[in-house]
């Protein structure tokens, strides 16, 4: 009886140890996705982590491309005010969904952001890529080497990041997001949906803060 109990104990301990080892040794294989996550009619399951209060009643879904100049303009001219006035106060949250179509480096840049998410640095990486954007599409500023350099500058585990990026781990995730954009009639980047209990409103282009304010204020 004691022998049998010991055997079971050893097996249980071995299983637990195996789980712990597998989780700790290969975090890159852990994809923490809520597959059922939707905002309005948009599946954001494959999009970015939520920026801001996850329980906020209003969500801004942004469709963007890391090589898009207008996305860069919105990131620098409009987003800071939205973050300051609505996201930081917990009234609104934001999800970024890739519409990576502008050049051959666009899908890779989007994939790289999810490789950074594996190490819980999605938004830091996202911000760094937009801050580092150069004016020419596919000029090399967002090629694999530069994407890895961005990861290095953020202090990410380079072994994990490189294996993630080189393997194309998130290529299907990015394709799924681009498909979501097409299905929702997004014609260019950046494209936005303001999703609330009252429905969802589409905004096309890098529109100024005043437009977002006019839409958001009555919903709060």
């Amino acid at each position, binding site marked *: 009886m004691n022998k049998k109990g010991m055997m079971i104990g050893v097996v249980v301990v071995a299983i637990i140890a195996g789980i712990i080892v597998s989780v700790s040794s290969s975090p890159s294989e852990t994809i923490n996705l809520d597959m059922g996550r939707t905002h309005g009619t948009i599946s954001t399951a494959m999009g970015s982590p939520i920026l801001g209060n996850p329980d906020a009643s209003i969500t801004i879904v942004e469709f963007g491309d890391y090589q898009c100049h207008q996305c860069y303009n919105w990131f620098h001219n409009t987003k800071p005010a939205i973050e300051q006035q609505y996201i930081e106060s917990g009234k609104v949250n934001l999800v970024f969904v890739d519409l990576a179509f502008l050049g051959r480096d666009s899908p890779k840049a989007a994939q790289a952001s999810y490789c950074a998410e594996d190490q819980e640095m999605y938004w830091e990486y996202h911000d760094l890529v937009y801050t580092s954007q150069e004016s020419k599409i596919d000029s090399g500023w967002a090629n694999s080497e530069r994407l890895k350099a961005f990861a290095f500058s953020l202090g990410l585990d380079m072994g994990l990041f490189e294996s993630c990026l080189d393997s194309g781990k998130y290529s299907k995730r990015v394709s799924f997001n681009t498909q979501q954009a097409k299905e929702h009639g*997004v014609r260019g*980047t950046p494209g936005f949906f303001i999703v609330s209990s009252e429905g969802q409103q589409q905004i096309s282009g890098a529109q100024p803060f005043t437009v977002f304010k006019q839409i958001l204020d009555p919903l709060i």
Partner: protein
Amino acid sequence: MIQTIKLVFTNFKYLVLSFSIFVTMLIGLLIMSEYLFLEPYVVSHIPSGTEFGFVLIVMISALSALVLPMNIFRINILKSSKQKMGGGVFGSIIGAAAGACSCGPIGFAVISTFGSVGATATAFLTNYEIPIRIIAIAILSITYFTTVKSLKVECKINS
């Protein structure tokens, strides 16, 4: 030069044509380049760092509005050749095409429809937006001066 402009634009028909070209090109290009939005509200803004692009759009619209009616005047009134008109139209088209694709509402449709060829074309038009607009302004300027010169000769205007 002023006499030549007066000669064309004292005719109300050419003044209306010029105004129409200017307004149509300006509004169209401002929408395409996302300086002007019509939905959900009519709003215009010039993001910081894009001021030069805005100035170039205004210049292309103004030069097109000047050059095209003058050449139409030459063809209609003086029955001159259409060669110079080609320069004006070409300058206007390449000026309009520069930067009008890429991220904007046309870019995704162009790339979706034409695939890699469309992607290469939109990337080129976006990457070289400013130089292309400057070239368009140069073409329109040259066309303007040659048109004025030929109108002086053809209409025997004393300078």
